[in-house]
């Protein structure tokens, strides 16, 4: 599996550290129902069989956090953007992004 790092180009996945689902959003701790929202944020996952947007950390390269879109059934990597670009592009729209 090779991951196209936005900074370094295509690199072996062994250079990266996996974090997990990039579409869960840290809730507002002051909002009503925050305890439940944090439970969902920390524990519940869509866990799709198919396309999955996920955080990887390029430890063996540029040391940036990136968001990779990958097919969990075939391991095909569809593309990658920086975590910053993902957030600015509205990618953090919650669980829908992995639907």
């Amino acid at each position, binding site marked *: *599996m090779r991951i196209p790092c936005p900074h370094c180009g295509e690199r*072996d*996945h*062994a250079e990266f550290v*996996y974090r*997990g*689902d990039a579409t869960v959003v840290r809730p507002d701790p002051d909002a009503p129902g925050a305890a*439940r929202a944090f*439970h*969902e944020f*920390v*524990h*519940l*996952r*869509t*866990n*799709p*069989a198919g396309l*999955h947007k*996920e955080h990887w950390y390029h430890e063996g390269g540029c040391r940036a956090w990136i968001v990779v879109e*990958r097919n*969990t*059934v*075939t*391991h095909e990597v569809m593309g990658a953007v920086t975590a910053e670009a993902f957030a600015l592009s509205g990618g953090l729209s919650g*669980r829908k992004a992995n639907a």
Partner: protein
Amino acid sequence: MRYSAFSVLKNALSGHKGWKPVWREPEPKAEYDVIIVGGGGHGLSTAYYLAKEFGLTNVAVIEKGYLGSGNIGRNTTIIRSNYMLPGNERFYELSMKLWEGLEQDFNYNAMVSQRGVINLYHSDGQRDAYARRGNAMRLEGVDAELLDRKALEKLCPYLDFDNGRFPIQGGLLQKRGGTARHDAVAWGYARGADMRGVDIIQNCEVTGFVIEAGVVKGVETSKGTIRAKKVGVAAAGNTTRVMDKAGLRLPIESHVLQAFVTEGLKPIINTVITFGVGHFYISQSDKGGLVFGGDLDGYNSYAQRGNLAMVEHVCEAGMAMVPMIGRARVLRSWGGIMDMSMDGSPIIDKTPVDGLYLNCGWCYGGFKATPASGMCFAHLIARDAPHPVATELRLDRFETGRVIDETGRGAQPNLH
């Protein structure tokens, strides 16, 4: 037919023409008392104990593929009960006790071999941690023995005790641990359930649930609607895919775990040994193949195959622990899909849908749990109350903070 020395002899003398298939291949009935989704080890053992211990025989096991085609047919066959936390330890000890009587109980040769399980330690700190774990096990009435280097050298002289980087100081031994023949476990449970009237329906995929007013009334399948008073799901790595159809979002991620088998060798590895630095475990099958594995690949996957980076890591760890295995040739390797929970411990519980029960979160330790998982899931389904040893394996423990996190790593499934 009951198996015995006499039946083996009789069939040997009549050219082995008398053996019959050990389970039927029935068409589904319109309705059952209980449907179990998933014909793997846990689903089959659940059906077996429902029939044998709880008198529920109007039961169907529905399997998408063929019987035992998932992780029960592809694992490293280790059985043990060397956990530390009470919520886990008494559950796995029930499993160990059931393993010890399993073959007599279901009259099938599961080749249960209590050859011992040893966890190596490589530093003073790790010895203390294992002493603590061993003490926790003994408090629950489970056998545990802390071996120093001398005792371990006598037992396993082939280990690389003076490894330059990770010298071996000793190990924690559970003598009652060992291995079992994984396929035979599935077959034995299937046969025992079938004999008592359970329908095992293979090549039948569950495509949805029939839920009326918040109560489950059956399942939609590729062979039509099958109604049931209760439905239990034991779908391991595919738990999310099945429970999605009931609208439930779970504390589960699916990950791939690889394992490996070498060519057959003369007996050289006499027990089950796990490495203390890096994830590696090895035993030798009765056929002679070295069976070993390591860590998860570490990323979400439903692919049933992993990548080469983990193959390299596992083999390096093996070479650091038992250099002599470097000459053995790997015959095959495979990847299985693990239902990794957020705290590394399983879930056997009701769900928010009445009549729908869930058995999942086995991470990569599901095989050893097969008997107790079936017993406790059957208890839950039959009595609507958790089995006494499974009271902490709750679905809501993540929300309430009562997690059972053996390694203390937090909600990061790929690290458990």
